């Protein structure tokens, strides 16, 4: 029984992390139809900022964390300004290639100017302590991660439903030109989407760094891949889909870890992606893919 609960907690916290990552991709995609593969490298920027802050400024973990979040958010907004704005209204493949380009450039900057080797960040060790809850051993990190993701989901939902800017972002996902025809500035809507995406990357960065304890130039690759898979499963462009896809991916991964016999352990990912493929056979556009019709055009 304890084992089962333990694994459920694992699935939940993995899922929470994937949901956080997937939301970062989905919010940009929903507004501008861009799959931002540089999202992972924004996370890496957060990681390197932690290194820099811990080495130069202070070892106070809260300041290090704040620094990482701010750096990730600013990087994201800056990337929109210099890299994605010029291709904003271009073909989606142009945006996709731009994102790959940005990702490669950032990774090479880390390689050239920092180091190809992993650099340890010790400031976040305190976040990962085992605690006992209802007789089950859980890690404080897992708990923090799940709670943070829930708060993010609640916050985003409120923002997207209550504030005019949130409404504008949702409207933009349907008909961006019409949003501009309301006099709402496209530049602000895009910048806001990237700001939120960057904040989410910053939050994800904290948990990834707390778990790994080090940063290297390819830190962002695995997270962005998971986020992409979660978005595809949930339905690209749908924010609830991103959350659902994230939690589903977490559950499937942990399920495979638990169910697969030891000798097949190395094939975990093959089984995970096999199940994902089956889900896509069932729902080719993802489980919660947004409806394709764009209002009634006559």
């Amino acid at each position, binding site marked *: 029984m304890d084992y089962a609960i333990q694994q459920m907690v694992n699935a939940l916290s993995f899922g929470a992390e994937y949901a956080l990552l997937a939301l970062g991709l989905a919010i940009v995609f929903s507004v501008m139809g861009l799959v931002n593969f540089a999202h992972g490298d924004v996370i890496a920027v957060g990681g390197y900022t932690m290194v820099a802050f811990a080495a130069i400024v202070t070892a106070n973990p809260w300041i290090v964390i704040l620094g990482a979040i701010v750096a990730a958010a600013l990087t994201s907004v800056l990337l929109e300004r210099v890299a994605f704005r010029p291709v904003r209204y271009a073909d989606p493949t142009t945006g996709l290639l731009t994102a790959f380009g940005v990702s490669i450039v950032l990774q090479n900057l880390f390689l050239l100017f920092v180091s190809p080797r992993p650099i340890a960040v010790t400031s976040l060790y305190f976040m990962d302590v085992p605690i006992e809850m209802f007789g089950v051993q859980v890690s404080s990190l897992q708990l923090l991660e799940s709670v943070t993701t829930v708060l993010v989901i609640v916050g985003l939902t409120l923002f997207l439903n209550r504030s*005019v800017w949130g*409404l*504008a972002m*949702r*409207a933009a*996902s*349907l*008909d961006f*030109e*019409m*949003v*501009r*025809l*309301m*006099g*709402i*500035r*496209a530049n602000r809507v895009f910048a806001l989407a990237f700001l939120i995406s960057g904040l989410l990357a910053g939050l994800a960065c904290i948990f990834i760094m707390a778990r790994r304890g080090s940063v290297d130039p390819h830190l962002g690759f695995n997270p962005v891949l998971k986020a992409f898979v979660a978005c595809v499963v949930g339905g690209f462009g749908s924010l609830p889909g991103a959350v659902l896809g994230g939690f589903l991916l977490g559950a499937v991964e942990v399920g495979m870890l638990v169910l697969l016999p030891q000798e097949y352990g190395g094939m975990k990912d093959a089984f995970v992606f096999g199940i994902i493929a089956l889900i896509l056979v069932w729902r080719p556009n993802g489980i919660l893919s*947004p409806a394709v019709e*764009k*209002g*009634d*055009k*006559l």
Partner: protein
Amino acid sequence: MLDIRNLKVLYGPIEAVHGISLRVEEGQCVTLLGPNGAGKSSTISAICGVAKATGDITFLGQDLLGTEIEDRVRAGISVSPEGRRIFSNLSVEANLQLGAGIRTDRDGIEADIDHWFTTFPILGERRTQSAGTLSGGEQQMLAIARALMAKPKILLLDEPSLGLAPRIVGQIFDMIEQLKSEGMTILLVEQNARQALRISDYAYLLNTGTIQAEGTTATLGQNDELMAKLTGLG
């Protein structure tokens, strides 16, 4: 108020409007009539900044060509576009809130939303419902109300009667007439010539991207041959 000279509208290499000139004076309702593909909607798109255009578009003495879509709205131009294009994934109320996206007077926005919900009780009953669930006529009313939420100086209406039942068309035109009597300046694009001429002061007849005829609605109304053509009875 709105002065257009030698306007050419381009879609890539294709020119949809070949150098037309038209004027809308303050408080007037001016109609662009003409068959499908005449260039009416292209003209509206050019005024909004959605379509590429050359020539002169002057609004309240300000040259509009080369300015962004958003700045034209802020200058006082609002549009209820062809096909209505309401935000079907948002609530009726949210559509109106976005219409007021350039305003900052919270109380005024609230009051205006309430005004529309009183004017069209059906919209009020469905304020929290997704706008995509409204009927075509209700969506058209919402689209016009949304455009007016920006407190425009001129309202562009692109085919507001398209695809609606005759009874609903009558309601929409009553609404436009009401707006006109309240002093709103209107540029209307219509295929329903009879209804459009009933409420407008001046009209232009477009065909294949050029102006074929123009005049006050009284003069045009006396031209039997033209009227027969326009109302499809000729």
